[in-house]
């Protein structure tokens, strides 16, 4: 290497520039969120834990068909009910199970649901559904899907049992995303 | 989507934008007279079994014993210096040649692409094109691993994605979707015959 560049290499300007950058970052605001004490605010469209509403469900099996990995299992049967004189057959939902442990939260079931507002939705802004045992605890049946036992809703989020609406998970009091830190 | 020839929307009285229209799927068109196919015909007249153009892409069917020769001509004379992709399709019901080995070539001079298709029966060897393009090495190994198509004088034709002891070729249509019992085959002393981890769902 030429003498000029050899001598130039003795002056560590580039190293000093690098030190400058890390030096400045030393005084910048830290990005760490102390998780258990400060919980990050998920966005309204965040695809988290399932919400399910039995009244709105018309048992059309669309969600079970749309699910790429077929983890929604539905059992139903027909019942004869009298509606103003005419005998009509009505589908009644027996079991509506979701194997949440294998779910990849892609949201295709929510899109396939024809009811308005949808009977099954993921925009519940709650992501804390860890469990110690996966086969029973994460295999949600109809009742547990509606009143989450074992899921910590994000503070301020209305749970489906308390009438959460898919596009309005916090019941109007939407936590502003800026509170993230 | 401006492919080689932009699809010109039909111009009804009120020009509705194409995304409001019901989509018109492209139809396969006989392409023997297409420039790219004519190029090959001039050099190797009997090497082209058929040519189809679908959605703007030319597919040329080539007899499987002439594939190496056609590839050399494509790379040398016709300038297809870039092998984009090499894969296979398993047409189980088809009587004579079960597998379609598909070569997807690209030419930098005028950015044209060409698909060569070779029909080969199960167990019949196809000449390996690693001598023409080095990149074909792993692609052919994957096709062998997934379909069981043998490539003649390939440097090291072994399984690349599944492990050595794996018996069967997963992407064949007759390979069960929920996987096969692989435990006993590899660890006979650990798993009883028929036992062991079954790829795919467990139980329910």
């Amino acid at each position, binding site marked *: 290497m030429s003498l000029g560049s*050899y001598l130039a290499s003795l002056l560590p300007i580039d190293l000093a520039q690098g030190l400058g950058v*890390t*030096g400045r*970052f*030393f005084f*910048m605001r*830290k990005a*760490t969120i102390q998780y258990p004490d400060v919980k990050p605010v998920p966005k309204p469209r965040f695809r988290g834990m399932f919400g399910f509403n039995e009244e709105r469900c018309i048992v059309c099996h669309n969600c079970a068909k749309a699910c790429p990995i077929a983890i929604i299992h539905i059992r139903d049967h027909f019942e004869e009910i009298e509606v103003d004189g005419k005998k009509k057959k009505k589908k009644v939902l027996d079991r509506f199970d979701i194997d949440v442990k294998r779910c990849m939260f892609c949201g295709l079931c929510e899109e396939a649901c024809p009811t308005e507002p949808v009977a099954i939705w993921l925009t519940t802004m709650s992501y804390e559904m860890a469990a110690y045992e996966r086969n029973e605890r994460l295999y949600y049946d109809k009742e547990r899907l509606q009143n989450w036992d074992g899921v910590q809703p994000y503070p301020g989020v209305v749970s489906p049992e308390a009438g959460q609406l898919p596009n309005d998970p916090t019941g109007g009091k939407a936590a502003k995303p800026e509170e993230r830190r | 989507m401006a492919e080689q020839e932009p699809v010109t929307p039909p111009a009804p009285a009120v020009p509705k934008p194409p995304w409001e229209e019901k989509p018109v799927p492209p139809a396969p068109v006989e392409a023997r007279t297409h420039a790219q196919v004519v190029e090959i015909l001039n050099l190797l007249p009997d090497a082209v079994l058929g040519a189809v153009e679908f959605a703007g892409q030319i597919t040329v069917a080539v007899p499987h014993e002439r594939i190496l020769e056609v590839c050399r001509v494509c790379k040398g004379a016709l300038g297809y210096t870039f092998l984009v992709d090499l894969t296979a399709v398993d047409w189980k019901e088809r009587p004579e040649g079960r597998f379609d080995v598909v070569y997807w070539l690209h030419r930098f001079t005028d950015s044209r692409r060409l698909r060569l298709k070779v029909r080969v029966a199960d167990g019949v060897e196809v000449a390996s094109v690693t001598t023409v393009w080095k990149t074909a090495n792993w692609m052919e190994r994957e096709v062998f691993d997934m379909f069981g198509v043998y490539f003649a004088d390939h440097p090291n034709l072994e399984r690349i994605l599944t492990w050595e002891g794996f018996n069967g070729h997963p992407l064949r249509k007759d390979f069960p979707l929920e996987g096969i019992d692989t435990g006993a085959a590899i660890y006979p002393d650990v798993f009883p015959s028929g036992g062991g981890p079954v790829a795919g769902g467990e139980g329910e």
Partner: protein
Amino acid sequence: MANPWIAYLVVPFVKIVVILLVLILVAAYLSFFERKILAYMQIRVGPNRVWPRGWLQPIADALKLFVKEIVIPARAERLVYLLGPVIMIIPALVVFSVIPFAPEGTFFGLLKQPIAPYLTDVNIGILFLLGVSSVGVYGVILGGWASNNKFSLMGGLRSAAQLVSYEVPMGFSVVAVLLMANSLSLVKIVEAQKNAGVWYFLPGFVAAFIYFACGVAETNRNPFDLPEAESELVAGFHTEYSGMNFAFYFLAEYANMVVISAVTTVLFFGGWLRPFPNVAALAFLDVIPPFVWFALKVGFFLYCYIWFRGTFPRYRFDQLMALGWKVFLPVSLVNLLVIGLGVLLIGGPR
């Protein structure tokens, strides 16, 4: 000290205990400060869970390492495997016996007549220092070879070659100081800087830079941390160590860092002297006691160690060697000539 028993037994014993304790505590807390400062440089917070705001983290680490099971690899050389970390930590601690960190004083009147806080004033101080500190490399090589693991073997051999090739320029930059101070004893060097009225950093800044750079290389620290380059050799020579063995290696590395910083302070930055000691105008600086000056300077160098670790990529092994032999060696030689000429013309202390 009238009674020899006290003079040669009790006082040195007390000094040894104090110095050893302080050094180990400083080394342990250095690991905590390193993680904290490095974190602050990387816009994160670092350990803050143990005790309020993480201050007891080193104690927790030490306890964990103490309790953890010592796993010895199957076909490892048991004796050499266990000896490795010991060989590395002993020189690191022994060297501190020579380093003068404060002038003779009466400890704010506690004692009747002044005694020297540092352990000894060996008149061949620097020779002892260089000799003992290069024993540490055996700990690395033996540890790497004995743990019967290809990766640690490579780590051990690498650090051996690295230490040997950086010992030479380090020696030359130290000789430059000897020329100026005209004495091997570290205490006299500091006094020489006091009489000269200027730290040896000013005339010998090239030597200081090279000494510190070689010091970074000696302690296998970034950007020369090849032996324990995580990404290549998994963890270098101490891959197979766990529990207290690993704690010794870990502590030895930090102790070596403190030693190198202390020696740099003594040789080039005037030990416990305040900047420009004889200039009356700066008399107000004397309010800070000498020992604190020493601690501030050592702290600055330790901060530089951590700063380097947060910023620089890692040299490849052959580049590191090339740098040692083709850049540091010639430059330190030329600098030696220049300083020698300077001393000849200006005439240093007799």
